[in-house]
């Protein structure tokens, strides 16, 4: 860990094509020894592709990689590891059913045929003592919070003696405090010349606070790079999204009356392994109001959305919709007009192999004009409605007969939103609507949500992205450990206080 400085990594003129699509075009990038470098760009800008070229997942069509000024060829992630380059992925690669110790041991390149757990534990404990953060070795990974998992991933790379760490959106699942902690430790390690760090991010705040240098990509092209100390946030933002697009403030109408639409009382829900994850939740949402639920994932948000969409049952508590008890049957959903855009809509509310038109009709295929006499489906009518929705919601490609799974994430999101908003909507439940979308798609979806609110829809917005919640919602509540622990109006919100409640540190 201490022998010499980390190597200097350079990528020169990298071009990568996927068929006719040019994912990267002549991109330059230089990670100097012991630096904290940020790779900044929108979703789809080519950041991940560039990093995958470095890691050996992809092989660039043009250009070369230099390690300490020597040209190298990296064929596979294993290869990358022999050069001391390790990556922490956005989706954790840890095995949830195993302990931290087992996970760290299994990642070693060479395993002895009989594992001496005592010795391994001793060695890793010693190793951990030199590290800035600690994780209990005996803990099961499934019981760790996202921040802890992230730390284990980083420790895993360090235990493999990698000197260049690449982190793909490392803070996307962390609270602001956790993010600051993890990045702060990485920063300290770069200052001590122990490692070089490259993070992929679109969060300007983190770049400004922690990085030495930044490289910006846009639509697969190199836009610029420079020392963070010489750039300000708005310059970086402009480099990232281009000058033509900026987030427009959303027009909001204020309704005079406060009519409660959705009332949750003392809701309790168990998760898949029988643990109570929603423990006595109370929430009221009024007409024309967006209530944002902030929180670290895994605090019961998923289950909360699932009970409202009818995918899970409560163990106790009452749900009242417009002052009537609610059970998520098809009939009641239609009567109360309560619709839902859950996270990962392709898996959660679409049938991937069915066509766009069929998926768009899930809510009303058995009604006029789609069903003749209530039982015979009229394909022409189905197609016609689909074509109208495709045009109105700008779904691409605009073909109603393609399987929905062949659409991009943003377009699937648009399609599901189109389906859920196509009729009159009284209550809308949304979870992480913009996860993995590019800037324009994100703006469109958010405009649609605010438009629905302005029409009087009561919106429950569950999101891991705090900025999104603060931008969209009228009221923000924080969910921790299955309960709502804090409430604030979004205009008066204090990030630090919200963050503390997200982690349960309220004193």
């Amino acid at each position, binding site marked *: 860990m201490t022998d010499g400085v980390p190597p200097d990594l350079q990528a020169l003129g990298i071009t990568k094509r996927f068929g006719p699509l040019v994912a990267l075009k002549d991109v330059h990038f230089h990670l100097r020894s012991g630096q904290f470098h940020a790779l900044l760009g929108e979703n789809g800008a080519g950041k991940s592709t560039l990093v995958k070229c470095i890691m050996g997942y992809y092989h660039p069509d043009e250009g070369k990689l230099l390690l300490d000024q020597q040209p190298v060829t990296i064929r596979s992630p294993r290869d990358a590891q022999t050069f001391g380059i390790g990556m922490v992925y956005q989706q954790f690669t840890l095995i949830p059913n195993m302990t931290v110790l087992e996970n760290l041991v299994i990642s070693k390149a060479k395993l002895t045929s*009989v*594992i001496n757990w005592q010795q391994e534990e001793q060695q890793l404990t010693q190793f951990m003592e030199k590290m800035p953060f600690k994780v209990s070795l005996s803990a099961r990974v499934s019981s760790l919070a996202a921040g802890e998992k992230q730390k284990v991933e980083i420790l895993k790379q360090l235990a493999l003696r990698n000197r260049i760490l690449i982190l793909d959106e490392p803070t996307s699942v962390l609270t602001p405090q956790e993010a600051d902690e993890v990045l702060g430790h990485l920063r300290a390690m770069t200052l001590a010349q122990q490692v070089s760090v490259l993070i992929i991010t679109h969060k300007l705040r983190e770049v400004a606070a922690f990085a030495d240098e930044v490289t910006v990509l846009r639509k697969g092209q190199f836009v610029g790079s420079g020392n963070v100390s010489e750039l300000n946030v708005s310059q970086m933002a402009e480099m990232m999204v281009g000058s033509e697009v900026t987030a427009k403030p959303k027009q909001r109408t204020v309704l005079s009356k406060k009519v409660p639409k959705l009332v949750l009382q003392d809701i309790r829900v168990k998760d898949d392994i029988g643990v109570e994850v929603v423990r006595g939740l109370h929430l009221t949402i009024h007409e024309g109001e967006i209530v944002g639920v902030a929180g670290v994932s895994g605090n019961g948000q998923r289950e909360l959305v699932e009970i409202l969409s009818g995918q899970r049952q409560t163990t106790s508590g009452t749900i009242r919709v417009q002052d009537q008890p609610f059970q998520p049957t098809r009939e009641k959903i239609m009567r109360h007009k309560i619709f839902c855009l859950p996270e990962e809509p392709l898996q959660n509310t679409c049938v991937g192999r069915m066509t766009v038109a069929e998926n768009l009709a899930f809510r009303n295929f058995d009604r006029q004009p789609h069903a003749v006499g209530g039982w015979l489906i009229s394909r022409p009518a189905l197609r016609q409605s689909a074509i109208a929705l495709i045009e109105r919601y700008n779904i691409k490609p605009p073909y109603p007969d393609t399987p929905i799974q062949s659409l991009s994430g943003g377009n699937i999101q648009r399609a599901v939103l189109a389906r859920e908003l196509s009729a009159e909507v009284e209550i809308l439940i949304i979870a992480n609507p913009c996860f993995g979308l590019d800037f324009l798609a994100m703006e469109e979806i958010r405009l649609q949500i605010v438009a629905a609110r302005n029409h009087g829809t009561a919106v429950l917005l569950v999101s891991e992205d705090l900025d999104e919640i603060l931008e969209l919602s009228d009221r923000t509540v924080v969910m921790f450990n299955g309960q709502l622990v804090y409430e604030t109006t979004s205009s008066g919100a204090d990030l630090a206080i919200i963050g503390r409640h997200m982690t349960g540190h309220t004193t």
Partner: protein
Amino acid sequence: MEVGWWGVLIAVLGGAIRIGTPFLFVSLGECLTEKSGRINLGLEGTLVMGAMTGYAVSLHSGSPWLGVLCAGLAGMVLGALHSWLCSFQRVNDIAVGIAMMLFGTGLAFFLGKPYIQPSAPRLPSIDLGGWSDVPQLKAALQINALFLIGIVVAVVLGWMLKNTAWGLKVRVVGESADAARALGLPVDRIRILSTAQGGFLAGIGGSYLSLYYPFNWSEGLSSGQGLMAVALVIFARWQPVGCLWVSLLWGGAAALGPSLQSVGVTGGYYIFNAIPYIMTLAVMIITCSPRRTLVGVPHELTVTR
């Protein structure tokens, strides 16, 4: 009468060992297979094939132990065939398992026709009850060496899964094929080896049926032990040592009917005989809730994904 009720208990314990041993081998085989992320329903066919092979080899060679070995090898071939078929893309292990079950039993019946009449040398038993002069106890303590071997296999398998590189790799492959590939592990090869080893154990279980208890070869020899193994493994929470206890429990349950009959309780004989199947059904119902997943289940199993 008092001795009679003790007799029932002793007979149940003896039956637990005698009837539980094939359950033990086949559930250990299933356990190892499932740990690597696949379900092998073909073990029912493997069991029958093992029984036929063991009986035939014992008859021709005069050595029942050679029969046991060959039964294991036959099971290994069937297991390898199952996992090889499953390693093709979009091939479902449950469907292949059902096909293998029919294939294994069909092949065994076809090849086993000449062995229904002749009598093969039997596996010897170890007499642990010599110190006692209660005849029931003596009978119950007539134990086959395969049972003792099964205990050793259960303990060693449990230890290996936890403490060896091989065991850790099997578990990683069973928990997450993606993570395994990221670690550079050959997912298909590990699964093929695990399933083949599982087949070996199930084959041995089959030879116990034909060479020790009930000691014959006929088409009705197996009574669903290979399929019930799936439920046993669930009940054992995918722990090999757990498989030992669960097998004894099922063996004991199966022995209840005959034991009661021996003291003159003949009412409900068929109901008592159905107890193992009822227990299997109960395990499946209790553990299969749409609202919760099982603790300890390997994540790659298709039924849980």
